[in-house]
């Protein structure tokens, strides 16, 4: 179970390009101060994700989904707020909660000179598994993800789908209770997307381990077909929670896309109607 409470994160963006070429060169060399600009990437996100439940983080590009997920994965220090994974507080840069989490981030870099098997096995050993256990788990995941033919090829030259499968198997090698996926369907074709959806459903089921799954996306159909619970994120805030049906009801639309647009982009109006 993952509980996220009032997360905040600001970034300072440096070197906004302005001024003539000479000024810019001076800035590059560090002779002049760079322009600074504060960006509020996440500005109060709260939600909880239950076990045996798929929670979708839905939002437009730049809404703050990836930043939130990176904070949950202990890759980024939150300015404010608290994250609890199975009761333990997440501290950025430490490894205490990482063994309970399997993370497929937007950076899905594999080692191109290692085979898929070596890639997966390496992470297993880093999670403290012994060789035999890691090997057995690799075989199991490979069977589930239908990637037996890939296992002994070097990952250099893998297709997007093959890459995603390998990265997913790598993230799940230590059988984590909580699974975080950042836009996992990016760049996948229909067949691969369907297979992934099936696999996530399997992980949610008791046979698959009743996992707590959070995944971010900007694709409506994904959410409609897969999520038990949806959190809509806009401008760094969570603006709506609930199941797909509840959100439809809340917005008074019968099309989920319209519901999303209304909830995500027209939320100031929502509060206005509330006043009325």
């Amino acid at each position, binding site marked *: 179970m993952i509980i996220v409470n009032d997360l905040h994160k600001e970034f300072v963006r440096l070197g906004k390009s302005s001024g003539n070429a000479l000024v810019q060169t001076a800035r590059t060399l560090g002779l002049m101060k760079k322009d600074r600009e504060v960006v509020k990437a996440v500005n109060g996100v709260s939600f909880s994700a239950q076990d045996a439940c798929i929670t979708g983080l839905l939002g437009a590009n730049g809404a703050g989904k990836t930043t939130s997920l990176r904070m949950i994965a202990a*890759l980024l220090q939150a300015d404010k707020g608290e994250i609890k994974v199975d009761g333990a507080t997440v501290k950025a840069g430490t490894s*205490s909660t990482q063994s309970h989490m399997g993370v497929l981030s937007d950076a899905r*870099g594999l080692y191109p*000179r*290692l085979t898929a098997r070596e890639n997966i096995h390496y*992470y297993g*050993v880093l999670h403290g598994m012994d060789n035999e256990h890691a090997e057995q788990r690799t075989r199991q995941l490979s069977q589930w993800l239908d990637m037996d033919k890939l296992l002994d090829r070097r990952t250099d030259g893998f297709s997007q789908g093959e890459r995603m499968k390998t*990265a997913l198997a790598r*993230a799940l090698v230590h059988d984590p209770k909580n699974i975080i996926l950042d836009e996992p369907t990016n760049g996948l074709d229909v067949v691969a997307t369907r297979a992934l959806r099936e696999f996530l459903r399997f992980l949610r089921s008791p046979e698959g381990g009743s996992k707590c799954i959070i995944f971010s996306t900007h694709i409506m159909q994904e959410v409609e077909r897969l999520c038990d619970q949806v959190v809509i994120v806009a401008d760094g805030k969570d603006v709506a929670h609930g199941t797909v049906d509840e959100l439809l009801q809340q917005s008074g639309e019968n099309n989920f896309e319209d519901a999303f647009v209304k909830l995500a982009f027209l939320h100031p109006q929502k509060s206005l109607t509330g006043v009325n």
Partner: protein
Amino acid sequence: MKATLAILRKELRDALRDRRTLLVALISSLLGVPLMLLIFSVVLSQVESQEEKRTVMVKGIEHARGLENFIQRQGYQIKTAPDDYAAKSQSKELDQPVLLIPDNFDEKLATGDKGMLEIAFDTSNRQAEFGVRPLRRLLDGYSQEVATMGLAMRGVSMELLQRIEVRERHLKKPEERKATITTMLPMMVLMAIVLGGMYAAIDTTAGERERGSLEPLMMNPVTGWQLTIGKWGAVAIVGMGVVVLTIFSFFPSQWLIHNETLRAEFQFNFKDAMGFLLVLLPLAASMAAIQIAVSLDCKSYKEAQVRNQMVTMFIPFVSLVPILFPGREPAWFQWVPVLSQNQMMNQVLKGETLSTVAVGIAFLVCALMSLVSLAYISQKMRKVVMH
């Protein structure tokens, strides 16, 4: 410990499957020294062949019968220079300087005037330049003979003319070897060390970040120190492998030397190889730590490469420092990395024994550099992806 070993094994496997890392490591270690020794051997032979040539190329020898006689008495042959000697020297067709004798040379000498001789050579023609020194020596000999003869004719005794005789006495220890040309060698070896591990160091940090595999790696429950030691271990092994290969490439290189002088100077035996290893292995290990530290927060391979090249440039600069201190080298040299290794390698090449203190100091400095770099890396390792 298990995780550290797993990281080390993976990084090593990764490096050994990387063509770029492997190629640079092999080329820098196996090709540099043999090539350098081959070139030196050829150049030295050219110099010596000029000195041994015993021919003099002259234009206008008919105007200097006395000189002709002297040159022949010294066992030299006289060749007449072609008319277009200038063009031929410039086009490197002529590999000797040309002695020019003016028309009135003998007359001037006979009347007691000063005779003028000219040596013509193209300064860009290295072969011809090598021949100038022996020719001058020959002409000095003639000049002295003419002078002595003149005085002897006037009744001055030969004994009086040579009151002082100068002889050289060489004070070097008998086991010590001459090492003039081979002083270039330590720099080549140092460059090989720096280049050899560089690509492995970049690949394991900036390369990993560029590929996007660093962030997933940080999601494993391993500490900064485990990552640091694992990665450093792998790069250091590559670097030290380069050292071992470089040093053992000296042995086959000796067959490439066809010049007797150089062969006498460069007698590299097993004991010397051990001395080199003692000096260089700690440096290679600390170099690996520095290279990882330098590349750590680079976002791309290219950026890391540029930074590492700056480190690489340090080597030739430091190797030049001893030129500023001719003669006895100051004691602080021992404390400067690269400089102290340079010094100790030269001692080994000259056949001297390494001092335990110097080796100890160098080891200490290397250990300190490694430790500082590793502490920095372990602090920073998990933070580089955190923004």
